[in-house]
């Protein structure tokens, strides 16, 4: 399968990329690793008239210790997130979860920014960065703005990014020794999660987010509220799906997903609390 014809443009800087996307508007898509977009284009589920290749903007590939948080360039590949010693030390949940994205070949190409901007609720890193209280930095024609992960996801494959904006950086607070767990339930090794859970806990503080439990990644605030008020893990995990609206598909019914979410949140919190 070969994608429908398109024009190919290459940007060498974020400013050039934004200038190009401003020029072509909704006919254009950014191309980073291409591992979400190209499969959709091959299946004709997407047929942008113009692809703007941003993968060569090498100054957007970095992982930096920025004091209270780690700053990750949007074009940092999953492979580099997975193996980053800085992340293993300060945000081990994210490094670990990145190792569950697709398979090694996909992680050699796919980028954290591409995964987040694609806003697929079944992807691992949108939910993981949501659980970690990330802030996303986006750049547009009029400068940059910061968006809390909790305000970023608007619907299935829809985000707060404007047509002429580009995600440039992901900022993740350091975990400061919090316990953590990433649970991914699927049938075959490289599949998307039927349900996934990213969770961390430090005493009464916690963050829990769900993969593939709604049209967006879901922050399970009821679980964290229950933990904060002293509930047991078993009781708190019963709140797992309180914010979620799961749907039926070929892999699972909504009812089964709700059950899975409770089980996986319990397992995640048990691990994070150990």
């Amino acid at each position, binding site marked *: 399968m070969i994608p429908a014809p*398109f024009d190919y443009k290459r940007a060498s800087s974020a400013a050039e990329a934004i200038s190009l996307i401003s020029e072509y508007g909704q006919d254009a898509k950014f191309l980073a690793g291409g591992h979400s977009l190209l499969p959709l284009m091959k299946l004709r589920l997407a047929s942008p008239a113009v692809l703007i290749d941003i993968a060569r903007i090498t100054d957007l590939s970095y992982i930096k210790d920025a004091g209270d948080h780690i700053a990750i360039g949007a074009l940092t590949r999953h492979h580099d997130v997975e193996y980053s010693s800085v992340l293993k030390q300060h945000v081990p949940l994210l490094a670990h979860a990145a190792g569950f994205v697709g*398979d090694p*070949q996909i992680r050699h190409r796919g980028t954290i920014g591409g995964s987040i901007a694609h806003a697929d609720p079944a992807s691992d890193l949108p939910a993981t960065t949501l659980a970690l209280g990330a802030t996303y930095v986006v750049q547009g024609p009029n400068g940059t703005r910061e968006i809390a992960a909790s305000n970023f996801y608007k619907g299935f494959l829809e985000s707060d990014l404007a047509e002429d904006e580009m995600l440039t950086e992901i900022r993740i607070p350091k975990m400061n020794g919090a316990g953590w767990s990433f649970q991914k339930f699927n049938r075959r090794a490289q599949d998307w999660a039927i349900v996934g859970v990213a969770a961390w806990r430090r005493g009464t503080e916690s963050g829990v987010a769900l993969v593939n439990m709604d049209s967006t990644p879901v922050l399970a605030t009821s679980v964290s509220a229950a933990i904060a008020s002293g509930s047991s893990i078993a009781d708190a995990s019963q709140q797992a799906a309180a914010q979620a609206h799961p749907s039926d598909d070929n892999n699972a019914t909504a009812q089964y997903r709700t059950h899975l979410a409770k089980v996986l949140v319990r397992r995640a919190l048990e691990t994070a609390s150990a």
Partner: protein
Amino acid sequence: MKINITVNGNNTQADVEPRTLLVNYIREHLGLTATNIGCDTSSCGACTVHLNGESVKSCTVLAVQADGASVTTVEGLATNGVMHPMQESFMQNHGLQCGYCTPGMVMAAISLLNENANPTEQEVRIGLEGNLCRCTGYHNIVQSVLACAGKK
């Protein structure tokens, strides 16, 4: 669009449509047909090649994205007619049945050992999760990789 890609050490140039996939460039423009197309949806790994030394699925990379890069296919592994140790190990351990997944398996396995020279059996199995063998001949494939790593 004009592209330059070093394939198996040779400089190649072509004027391609932007939508040309790297695997089609390798197979059809260059006539290097060892790299197979299996699922064509970045699941099966039959099309795995090395892009700048790392395994990628060439059905999900545009040739224009590889412009300026170095690509290695299974045809580029032998040196002066002597097979790469991984190829030799697949042969000695019968790491194949029908052979369709083999070029991709060999390329993924070499990339795996480049990143982890001393893997456990479990790490080999997880490291090859992006490559499917529909003969289900995984046992000897894993043995081949372990043998190449000197662990058998």
